């Protein structure tokens, strides 16, 4: 299924090398996921704002049996998880990890934009600048 128009600012942001998230102009809280056609629960209007791709892993997993449409059992494992961003309190974003090495919960991570094929994608990896920046492992179990 193709992403719908109301979600385009998120994808346009990644294409431009920015992580953009929907934020309420009224109360300042982030509204994630943004439901098309709705105002924020406070009644305010949603706008999109750029945030730093910097945060802490909430949970992660390495997916060894692919479920995505078109995936095959020969595909290499992928690593995905949830990250709480420093600049967007109250929400969690879904991330994929660089080189599909899952960073464990609690690890400080940073996102980077890299061309995959013909388009930029956002991937997260342990933040080298963070003191005691946690671990990264394909076999996190």
């Amino acid at each position: 299924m193709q992403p719908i128009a109301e979600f385009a600012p998120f994808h346009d942001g990644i294409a431009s090398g920015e992580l953009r998230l929907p934020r309420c102009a009224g109360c300042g809280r982030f509204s994630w996921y943004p439901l098309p056609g709705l105002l924020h629960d406070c009644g305010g209007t949603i706008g999109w704002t750029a945030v730093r791709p910097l945060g802490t892993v909430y949970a992660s997993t390495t997916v060894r049996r692919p479920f995505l449409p078109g995936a095959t059992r020969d595909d290499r494992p992928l690593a995905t998880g949830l990250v709480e961003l420093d600049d967007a309190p109250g929400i969690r974003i879904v991330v994929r990890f660089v080189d599909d090495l899952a960073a464990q919960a609690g690890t400080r991570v940073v996102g980077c934009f890299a061309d995959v094929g013909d388009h930029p994608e956002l991937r997260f990896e342990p933040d080298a600048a963070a003191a005691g920046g946690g671990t990264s492992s394909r076999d996190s179990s």
Partner: protein
Amino acid sequence: MNTAIVGVGEPTPSWRDDRPTLALVVEAVRLALDDAGIDASEVDGFTSEAQTMLGRARPDEIAKAIGAPNRRFSAHTSIAGAGVIDAIQQATLALDAGLADVVVSYYGLSLSRSTPYSIHAEDPAKASFEMPFGYFGQPVYFALLADRYRHEYGLSETELAGVPIAARAWARRTDGALVQDPLDLDGYLASRMVADPLRKADCCLINDAAAAVVLTRADRARDTRQTPIVVAGSGFGTKPVTEADYFTQNPDFLEMASATSGPRAFEAAGIGPGDVDVAEIYDCFTMSVILQLEDLGLAPRGGGAAMVASGATAPGGSLPVNTHGGLLSHSYSVGAGHVVEAVRQLRHERGAGQVDGAEVAVVTGLGAMDHGTLVLTVDR
């Protein structure tokens, strides 16, 4: 007793049944009516889960197929397992209100002709904010729940293994359970990793199945073929998130809506978790069992994994759970089979799988942000 389940029907599940889902459901309904000794012409109400049943097995079609011309009540509610349980609550409401006299509650599915994942791929928010980053498929959602649980409370492979090992032991005491091979810790550890830390053995089966129950009021219930099983209490609960964002944005990540549906059902029944003799807990994944046991107060918060690892939920344990093998080893009936099993336990007709002296059963159903809990008792 106000309302009771007086008949249960569950065709033997199979990996592949070429009949339409409607035909499976109709067979389940006929079996349930025969079990109750009630003629189809008496049925005047139908309830079911809403998200899929209104497409696959509508009440008008079922009524015509079984010969129930006096349909005067229909209710269809919620999602997946939550809908299966809430449909029974709707049936009791209709009976209590006098809107119907004999209600059939049903569910059926044919996953041999589809996949459990496709419905999620149709969600535009998941397609935008989850799938591009590899987050897709229910095993992945529950793997993250397990990983977070591990981070907060600790969770070992041995602890996770407690759930599927107990389920298999119960399945081996149950005719018709789809998977009956022995499963021990070595077998569990040999099971293929799907999404760390969940293995294939942590995931429910994928099959074709249906089940139905017949409910009526006390006066009619005492005049049926079987021992009536009382619907002593029911509860419905939700989380403040949508179906799209539930698995990532649930504020209390390790708490499902069972944290509210459970207490509501117990309060309605006038009993507590300590009174439960047998628990049929929605086990789409091992992790969902551990979390619901904690939400319901059947295990301490953060102590569910240790409880299942202790063998407490296995045959001979202090709290038998999923005594037919559940979704993990009996069949994926989205919890409809859990209701059937609870009734059979309270009728004391489960033979090798019988929990001695069972008088109180709790049944739960999960459907993303919704959750239903049912308390069933013998007539006392």
